[in-house]
C-alpha cells in the first residue's frame, strides 16, 4: 500500500477520477468525478451537489473503488474505499464548500446551488496500477531535469531567507511590496503576483503587482468574491490547480442546467490577472486575526502551486503582513527615504500640455481627460493637492495634514494612508505621468506638475 501523502498531486483535481460503486442487487456503477479530496492519511472525501447513484449505492453497500491520475507522471492509482459518514457542516465541509464557490464564481454560478454534503470514505488500500503505462523510452530525452526534493527545499529556503531580508530592510510600504514581488520571481520563479490591500468599502484594491504589465494596480475585488475575495473573507489560504479543467467542468454543468431550464442568470466573471491562468494561489496577510492584505500568485502551469508551496509561502505571507503593519505605523516625519523612492522623478516630458481633471462629487471619482483615474479617498486626496497647488502654488505636503483633514474621510485608526498614496502615485504614473507625487522624507511628499492643469467639478457624470 502506498501512502496517500506520497501522491498529493492526485488530489488537486487536475485530471478527473473514476468512481465505481455497486448496488445491493450487484449492479456496478461507474462515473467520472472532478476531484477526490484528501482528508488525512486514511480518509478521502467526495463532494456532492446533486443526489446521485454513487451516493445511493454507498449508503446500501459501502464499498467503492476509485482510479486516480497523477497530473505530473500520468501514472494511475487505485484506492479501495469504504463509505464512512456524510458531513454537512464543520471545517471539512466548509473548506470544500468554499472551494466549490470559488470556481462557481468564475462561471457565474454562485448561489445557483451549494454543496449538499461531503461523503467521507475510509481508504482500505491504495496501490499504484502496475503496467498501466509502458516504461518511458530512455532514448527520448526528458524535457527538463527533475530537481531532487532536497535540492528544491534548499533553493526554496534560500529564497525565503532572501525575501525575508528584503521585507526586513524595506524602509517604506512601497519598497516593501515592490521588492517582495520582484524577489518572488528572482528567488522562487513566481512570475505573476500581486498584493491587494483592503479599503473601508470592504473591497480589496491591487496596490502592487508584478508580471501583469502596467495596468494591474487599482483593480478591485469585492470581499468574499472569487479566490482572492474568499481568501480574504475566510482568512485562510486557498489554491486552485488546473483552472482550465475546472472551468470546463463547471461550464458543462452550467450548460446542463440551461438545458434543464435552470439557467443561472449571472454572467461569467473573468479571472482576475492572467486571462489564461492555470493555477492560482492566494494567501491572507494577517497580523493576529486582522487582515492587512492578500498575496495572490498565478501561473500558466496547472501544477505550479502545491501544498508545499502554500505552506512555505504562508511563512512569507506572515512576514509581509508584519512588514505592512510596521510600514503603516512607522510613519513619522523626518527620516530620509531610500533613493529608489524619493526624488526618482519622471524623465523630462518633452511637450508641456494641459491635462483636464474632472471630479464627480457624487461618487468621489476623478477622470483625467475623460479617462477614469481614481476614486474614493485617494481621489479626495488628489483633489485637495491639486486645489492647493492651483490656489497657492504649494507643492509640499505632509501625511499629518492629510490625517487632520476630516473632509477626506480617513478612519481614525489604521487609516492605510500610505497604501492610498501608493495607489494614487501608481495610477498617476500610468494615466497622467505629467503629474506625480514623490515622497521627499518619511511622512512628507511633493506634488510635481509638468503640464498645465485644469480642474472641473460636477455633481455627477
Amino acid at each position, binding site marked *: 500500500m502506498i501512502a496517500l501523502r506520497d501522491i498529493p498531486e492526485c488530489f488537486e483535481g487536475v485530471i478527473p477520477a473514476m468512481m465505481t460503486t455497486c448496488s445491493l442487487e450487484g449492479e456496478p*456503477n*461507474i462515473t*467520472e468525478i472532478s476531484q477526490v479530496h484528501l482528508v488525512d492519511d486514511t480518509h478521502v472525501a467526495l463532494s456532492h451537489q446533486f443526489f446521485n447513484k454513487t451516493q445511493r449505492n454507498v449508503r446500501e453497500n459501502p464499498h467503492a473503488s476509485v482510479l486516480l491520475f497523477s497530473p505530473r507522471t500520468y501514472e494511475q492509482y487505485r484506492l479501495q474505499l469504504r463509505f464512512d459518514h456524510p458531513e454537512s457542516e464543520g471545517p471539512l465541509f466548509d473548506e470544500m464548500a468554499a472551494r466549490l464557490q470559488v470556481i462557481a464564481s468564475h462561471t457565474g454560478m454562485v448561489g445557483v446551488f451549494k454543496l449538499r454534503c461531503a461523503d467521507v470514505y475510509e481508504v482500505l488500500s491504495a496501490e499504484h496500477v502496475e503496467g498501466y*503505462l509502458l516504461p518511458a523510452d530512455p532514448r527520448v530525452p526528458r524535457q527538463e531535469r527533475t530537481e531532487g526534493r532536497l535540492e528544491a527545499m534548499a533553493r526554496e529556503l534560500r529564497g525565503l531567507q532572501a525575501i525575508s531580508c528584503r521585507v526586513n530592510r524595506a524602509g517604506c510600504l512601497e519598497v516593501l511590496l515592490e521588492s517582495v514581488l520582484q524577489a518572488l520571481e528572482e528567488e522562487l520563479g513566481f512570475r505573476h503576483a500581486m498584493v491587494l490591500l483592503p479599503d473601508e468599502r470592504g473591497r480589496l484594491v491591487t496596490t502592487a503587482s508584478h508580471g501583469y504589465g502596467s495596468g494591474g494596480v487599482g483593480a478591485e475585488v469585492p470581499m468574499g468574491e472569487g479566490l482572492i475575495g474568499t481568501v480574504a473573507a475566510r482568512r485562510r489560504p486557498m489554491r486552485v490547480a488546473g483552472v482550465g479543467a475546472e472551468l470546463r467542468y463547471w461550464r*458543462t454543468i452550467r450548460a446542463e*442546467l440551461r438545458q434543464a431550464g435552470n439557467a443561472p442568470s449571472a454572467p461569467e466573471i473573468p479571472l482576475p490577472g492572467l486571462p489564461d491562468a492555470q493555477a492560482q494561489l492566494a494567501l491572507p496577510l494577517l497580523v493576529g486575526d486582522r487582515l492587512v492584505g492578500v498575496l495572490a500568485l498565478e501561473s500558466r502551469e496547472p501544477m505550479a502551486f502545491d501544498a508545499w508551496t502554500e505552506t512555505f509561502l504562508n511563512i512569507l505571507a506572515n512576514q509581509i503582513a508584519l512588514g505592512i503593519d510596521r510600514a503603516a505605523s512607522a510613519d513619522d516625519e523626518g527620516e530620509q527615504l531610500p533613493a529608489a523612492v524619493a526624488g526618482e522623478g519622471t524623465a523630462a516630458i518633452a511637450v508641456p500640455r494641459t491635462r483636464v481633471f474632472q471630479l464627480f462629487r457624487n461618487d468621489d471619482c476623478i477622470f483625467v481627460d475623460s479617462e477614469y483615474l481614481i476614486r474614493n479617498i485617494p481621489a479626495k486626496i488628489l483633489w485637495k493637492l491639486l486645489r492647493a497647488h492651483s490656489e497657492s502654488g504649494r507643492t509640499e505636503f505632509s501625511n499629518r495634514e492629510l490625517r487632520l483633514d476630516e473632509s477626506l474621510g480617513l478612519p481614525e485608526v489604521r487609516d492605510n494612508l500610505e497604501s492610498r498614496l501608493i495607489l494614487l502615485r501608481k495610477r498617476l504614473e500610468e494615466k497622467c505621468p505629467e503629474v506625480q507625487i514623490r515622497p521627499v522624507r518619511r511622512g512628507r511628499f511633493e506634488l510635481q506638475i509638468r503640464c498645465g492643469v485644469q480642474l472641473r467639478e460636477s455633481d455627477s457624470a
Partner: protein
Amino acid sequence: MATLDPALVEFLSSGVVLGCASRDARLVPRSVWAVGIRVEAGGEEVTVFLPMATAAEVVANLQDARRIAVVATAPVDHRSVQLKGQVLEVRPASEDEQSLTDRYRACLGRTLEPLGVPRAFVLRIQHWPAHAVRFRVEELFVQTPGPAAGQPFQGPFRPPEPVRT
C-alpha cells in the same frame, strides 16, 4: 434492452475516455481503463477491450458475476454516458482487433493533447495484448455532470461546446 443510436456510436469512437466497472462476489467494485470499444448487433451489443496488463481482477469479476458497466466521457466537455449490461463472452482479443485498440489510443491522444496531456504519455498506455468482453446493452444513463446525471439516456447528445482551454 437498449439500442445505441448512430449518434451515440459516433460519440463512442470520438476519442472518449473509457472506464469499465465490475464487482466481485462480495459486491466489492473494481474498475479499469478500457482501450477500445466496438458496437455490434445493430447497436444492441458492445465489445469493450481491456488491457491484460491491468485488467486481471476486473476480468475475473466479469467472468464470475457477468454484470458490467462502461462509462464513456469526452475529456473536452465532460459529456458522458454509461452503458450497463450482461456479459456474453470474455476472450483474448484476436490479432486483427489490435488495430482497433491502436486507433483508439491514437484518437485519445489527439483529444487529450489540446488539454495539455502530451501525446507521448498516451502512447505509453499499455493497450496490447487485451481481453475482449462482449456484453448485451440493457440500460443507458446520462453521466454528464449536472442535474440529469444518472437519469436514463434519451439522446441525442447536445453538440459539444467549443474548446476553451
